[in-house]
């Protein structure tokens, strides 16, 4: 009876992207791969495409409007400006994946930064203790928020809105009604302000590319060994080469002299914060895509009931997402404090949270849950940082900047909603 099963090779097989094993014609395999990718995009699986397109378009626009945008100094500046938002956005991605929201992440980062500052200055303790305390605070905040949402069943919107207000108050109390604490610790200041030596940058680059290449190639070989559907080798190599080119170019540029007065003070090398972002990106990507916990995060966000029935400890996964979010908010707070070399009650306030949520959504995380990557936070954060940086260079007022950033966020949410719509149209019959 099995021969009766020929029905329905559905017209949609949008994800049939990869070449058949042992495809005889390598060029054909590559073409098929590209075609499959395009089919995916058409069916709503846009992935990182909007964010990358946005980055390219914005760079061209600002570069033409203000040539200084393309200066090496500004490139290094961009990383520093965007780092805190990217950190918070990385954490928010986890909460967005399970279909929740954390509105308190901004002020949580402020509270953690304030605690770090107080420990450093008022108590005069060392930086590892101060940063450790900030991270522990973030973890406790996450546990509390998660428990309230998961165990008591209060919607995360309400819980974190309340926390948004409360943390603002806590920051004020910690900072004694609004004093500004200056940070003098050299190590903490180096987080956002320091640069690597030139050779350190190149060494890290070599390790990164070698590591990425090894992972990619060994995965490709393993899949061939198991006779599974695999990508053409050319695509794997192209991907490694593209990453190598992009990163080498970046390291090369950042290793150039970017000081206005090199005789007085020389300013070269990859900013330390770039390395921190790279490490965080690698760790969280690994957890999200290569561990059981990450898989369960997506499952909980995609269909909580299915996850329950599959034996996933849904409560624990959901609480963990909030812990990661607040923990990354703490990291963002430390980075922000380091960059400003001070903490005040507005650290993590004003538009930090909205920019972070915007970054995650612009990068491709979905407010509807079930979708999002750490890469989304990175790319979306880049878009947000470029907009702010570029418009700042153009001398536009804060009002215009808010307006444009809001419009971009709306556009990203629109793309998110539209891609869901397309997915529904092209998907189920």
């Amino acid at each position, binding site marked *: 009876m099995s021969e*009766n099963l020929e*029905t329905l090779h559905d017209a949609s097989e949008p994800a*049939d992207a990869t070449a058949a094993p042992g495809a005889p014609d390598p060029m054909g395999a590559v073409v098929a791969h590209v075609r499959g990718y395009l089919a995916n995009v058409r069916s709503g699986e846009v992935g990182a495409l909007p964010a990358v397109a946005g980055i390219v378009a914005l760079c061209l626009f600002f570069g033409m409007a203000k040539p200084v945008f393309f200066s090496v100094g500004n490139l290094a500046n961009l990383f520093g400006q965007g780092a805190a938002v990217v950190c918070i956005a990385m954490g928010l991605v986890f909460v967005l994946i399970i279909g929740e929201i954390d509105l308190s992440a901004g002020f949580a980062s402020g509270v953690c930064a304030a605690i770090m500052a107080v420990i450093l200055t008022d108590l005069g303790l060392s930086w590892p203790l101060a940063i450790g305390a900030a991270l522990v605070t973030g973890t406790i905040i996450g546990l509390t928020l998660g428990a309230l949402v998961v165990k008591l069943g209060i919607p995360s919107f309400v819980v974190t809105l309340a926390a948004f207000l409360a943390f603002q108050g806590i920051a004020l109390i910690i900072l004694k009604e609004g004093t500004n604490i200056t940070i003098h610790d050299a190590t903490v200041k180096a987080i956002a302000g320091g640069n690597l030596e030139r050779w350190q940058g190149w060494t890290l680059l070599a390790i990164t590319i070698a590591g990425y290449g090894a992972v990619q190639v060994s995965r490709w070989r393993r*899949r061939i060994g*198991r006779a599974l559907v695999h990508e053409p080798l050319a695509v794997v190599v192209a991907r490694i080469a593209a990453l190598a080119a992009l990163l080498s170019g970046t390291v090369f540029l950042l290793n150039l002299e970017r000081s206005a007065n090199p005789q007085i003070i020389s300013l070269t090398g990859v900013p330390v914060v770039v390395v921190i972002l790279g490490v965080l990106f690698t760790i969280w990507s690994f957890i999200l895509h290569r561990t*059981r916990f990450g898989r369960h995060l997506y*499952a909980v966000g995609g269909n909580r009931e299915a996850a329950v*029935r599959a034996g996933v400890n849904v409560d624990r996964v959901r609480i963990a997402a909030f812990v990661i979010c607040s923990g990354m908010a703490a990291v963002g707070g430390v980075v922000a404090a380091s960059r400003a070399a001070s903490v005040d009650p507005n650290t993590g306030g004003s538009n930090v949270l909205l920019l972070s949520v915007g970054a995650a959504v612009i990068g491709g995380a979905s407010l509807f849950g079930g979708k999002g990557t750490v890469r989304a936070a990175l790319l979306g954060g880049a878009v947000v940082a470029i907009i702010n940086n570029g418009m700042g260079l153009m001398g536009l007022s804060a009002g215009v900047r808010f307006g444009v950033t809001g419009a971009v966020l709306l556009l990203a949410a629109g793309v998110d909603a539209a891609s869901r719509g397309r997915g529904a149209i092209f998907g189920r019959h």
Partner: protein
Amino acid sequence: MLLELTGVSKRFGPVEVLSEVDLSIDAGEVCALVGDNGAGKSTLVKCVAGIHAIDGGSIAVEGEVRDISGPRDAAALGIEIVYQDLALCDNLDIVENLFLGRERRRGIVLDDDSMEQLAAETLDSLAVRTIRNLRQNVASLSGGQRQTVAIAKAVLWNSRLVILDEPTAALGVAQTRQVLELIRRLADQGLAVLYISHNLNDVFAVADRIAALYLGRMAAVLDAADTTQSQVVELITSGRSGSLGLTDTNGART
């Protein structure tokens, strides 16, 4: 007998939903469970699945009385349930769905390749030809393909009894036929299948035996070959058909 229910009763407060239900299913056979809405089909399934604790009677697996107090107990006994609403994650691909909650790992890293291989072998053993790319998201599948994935998920774990709750309710003609063939194939491979359906054509197409529930009581368990559709309809609607079915008054329970 692989599964043997004896005198199973279930009460929700004052309402007796199942009363003294007897049912046995052997390996290699498809037993259809029919009954009107509210007859207790879903409750019966949930009792076997360990979601509801039973108030009376016993459930025996391979002759041994078992206390099934949760889905994990049921799974450990080789009982898998395919629910009506499928319980698939749209945002995960087929392999990820098949192994959800029971992912294979090497150290702490997911072993996606071996999972994909095993998934391919399982679908192969079920002679599923309708799914080519195991790495497509379930959202992009048709109803029949989704049902196939849900059933494959149930048989992936050396299960012995697969319970299917209305698997063809939302499917078109061709897809229904596919799923019915798949059900038949499960039994041919030596699994016991409990198949719940409203559609008597489908029931007669695939079932070896037919168990009719009527208001929480087992009206009759019949060989499909010796039964007509009209008899089953009568059993479903009034609990009796000629000499078959419940002997006491029309559905009134004490």
